[in-house]
C-alpha cells in the first residue's frame, strides 16, 4: 500500500524521533510512504494568525502537488493535517477566485493515527505484535487539531476520538478513560507565553495520574514537546515527585512489534521511558 507522505517541518527537526518511529512502523506494516516532492510548510499557527491568505495558499500548494499523485495523503502532525484540511475546504468552496492556488480535490487527507487505525491495518498490526506491552497504563492524549472543528477535520467523534485507543489495545497497553483527550496543551505559546503552557500541561499531568496512568500517549509533536520538555520543572513547581513518560503512539507500536531500533527512540525524550519500562518488566 502506497501513500503520499507529508512530514512537516518539525519532523525534520525537533520531532525526528516521531519521524523515525513512524517510518519504521509503517514499513513493518507494509505501508510505503512516498514523501511529497518539494513540499513546503503548511503555514502553521503563524500564517492563520496574521495572514489568512498565505495560510490557505501555503497549505494549498501542497495539495496541488499531491493532486498529481493519485494517492491518499497522510500527515503525522495534527496541525499540518488541520491546515491541509482547512485549505481543502476553502479552495473547493472558492473554486479559484480569491486564492493564488487552485486545487481540484480528489486527494483524501488523513491524520496518521486515523489512517493506521483503519480496520485492515489494525488486523495486520494485531497479527504482528511480538511483545505485548503489559504493565503500561496509558491515557491517550489527542490534542486539538486532529479533531476540531469537525466541519474541517471530518472527525467521526471530535469530543471522544478513538484512533489511538484502538491502536493501543492490540499492543496490550491498558488504556485508561479520561476526559482530557482533546484539551489544549497551549501549543506554540510555549515560546512567547510559556506560563500558559505550564498551567495547562500541569493540569493534564494531574488528571492523567488521577485516571491511573503511568504514561501519556500522543500523536502530535507539539503536544509531545509541551508535555515532555519542561516536565521536571512543571512538576517540581507543583510539588510532585512522579514523572510521566510521553510516548508517541508509533514508538509503542515499534516496541510491541519488536523492532530492534525501537529501544533507542526513548533516548530522545527528556523524561526517559526506560525506567518505567524496566519497572513493568519490559526492559531490554
Amino acid at each position, binding site marked *: 500500500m502506497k501513500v503520499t507522505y507529508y512530514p512537516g*517541518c*518539525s519532523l*525534520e*527537526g*525537533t*520531532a*525526528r*524521533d516521531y519521524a523515525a518511529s513512524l517510518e519504521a512502523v509503517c514499513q513493518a506494516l507494509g505501508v510505503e510512504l512516498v514523501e511529497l516532492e*518539494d*513540499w*513546503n*510548510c503548511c*503555514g*502553521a*499557527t*503563524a*500564517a*492563520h*494568525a*496574521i*495572514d*489568512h*491568505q*498565505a495560510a490557505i*495558499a*501555503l497549505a494549498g*500548494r501542497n495539495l496541488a502537488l499531491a493532486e498529481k499523485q493519485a494517492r491518499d495523503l497522510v500527515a503525522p502532525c495534527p496541525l499540518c493535517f488541520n491546515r491541509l484540511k482547512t485549505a481543502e475546504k476553502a479552495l473547493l468552496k472558492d473554486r479559484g477566485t480569491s486564492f*493564488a*492556488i487552485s486545487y481540484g480535490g480528489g486527494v483524501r487527507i488523513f491524520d496518521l493515527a486515523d489512517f493506521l487505525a483503519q480496520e485492515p491495518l489494525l488486523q495486520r498490526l494485531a497479527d504482528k505484535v511480538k511483545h505485548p506491552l503489559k504493565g503500561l497504563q496509558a491515557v491517550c492524549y489527542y490534542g*486539538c*487539531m486532529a479533531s*476540531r*472543528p*469537525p466541519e474541517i477535520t471530518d472527525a467521526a467523534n*471530535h469530543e471522544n476520538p478513538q484512533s489511538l485507543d484502538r491502536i493501543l489495545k492490540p499492543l496490550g497497553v491498558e488504556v485508561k478513560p479520561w476526559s482530557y483527550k482533546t*484539551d*489544549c496543551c*497551549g*501549543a*506554540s*505559546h510555549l*515560546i*512567547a*507565553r510559556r*506560563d*500558559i503552557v505550564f*498551567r*495547562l500541561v500541569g493540569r493534564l499531568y494531574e488528571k492523567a495520574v488521577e485516571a491511573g496512568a503511568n504514561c501519556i500517549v500522543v500523536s502530535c509533536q507539539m503536544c509531545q514537546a509541551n508535555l515532555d*520538555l*519542561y516536565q521536571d*520543572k512543571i512538576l517540581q513547581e507543583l510539588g510532585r515527585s512522579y514523572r510521566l513518560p510521553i510516548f508517541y503512539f508509533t514508538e509503542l507500536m515499534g516496541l510491541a512489534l519488536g523492532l530492534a531500533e525501537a529501544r533507542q527512540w526513548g*533516548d*530522545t*525524550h*527528556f523524561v526517559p521511558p526506560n525506567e518505567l519500562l524496566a519497572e513493568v518488566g519490559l526492559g531490554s
Partner: protein
Amino acid sequence: VEQASGIRVSACYQCKKCSNGCPVTFAMDIYPDQVIRLVQMGQKQAVLNCSTVWVCSACETCTTRCPNEIDIAGVMDYLKEEALKSGVALPQPRTYAFHRVFLDDIRRRGRVFEGGLLPRYMLKSGEMWRKLRTMEFTDDLGLAYGMVRRGRMPFRPRGISLSGQAEIKRLVKKSTKPERP
C-alpha cells in the same frame, strides 16, 4: 467584520458557551463572548486593543461548540490581522514577534528551520535582554543543550526547490509592519 471575514457575528445571543469551554480564559483580559459582543456593538478600539485575541491558542473549542455556528476562533484571527493593519500598540508583542519570525522563515526557504527560529525570535522580540536579566536564560540554554544532546535540534536548514521558493515568495506577502512592535 461580517462582510470582510464571512463570519456571522450577529448570530451570537450571548450564551457564553465559548468562554465556558475556553482553556485559556485565565490569561485573557476579556472573555471571548465579550469580544463577540463588542464586535456587535462596533467597539473597534476595545477589541483591537484587547489581549484576548492574541492569547487565544486557536484550539477551536469555541468554534466547535457555538450553537449558532460562529467561527469564534476565526474572529480572533481576523481581529489580529485588523490590529496589525490599524497600527495599534499590540498588547502581546512577543506573541506577534513569534508569528512574524515564523512566517518570515517560511518566506525565506519554504520550510521552517527550528534551529534558527528561536535565536531569531529572541533577538526580534527583545526577549534576549529580558531573559539575560532573569534566570530564564539559563533555563533556555539548558533546554537547548538537552535538545542538542538528544539529537532534537536541527543544525542544517532544509529548503525546497528554487522554483518552489519563488512561488512561496509570491504566496506570502512581505511584512510591511515594523519588525519590533
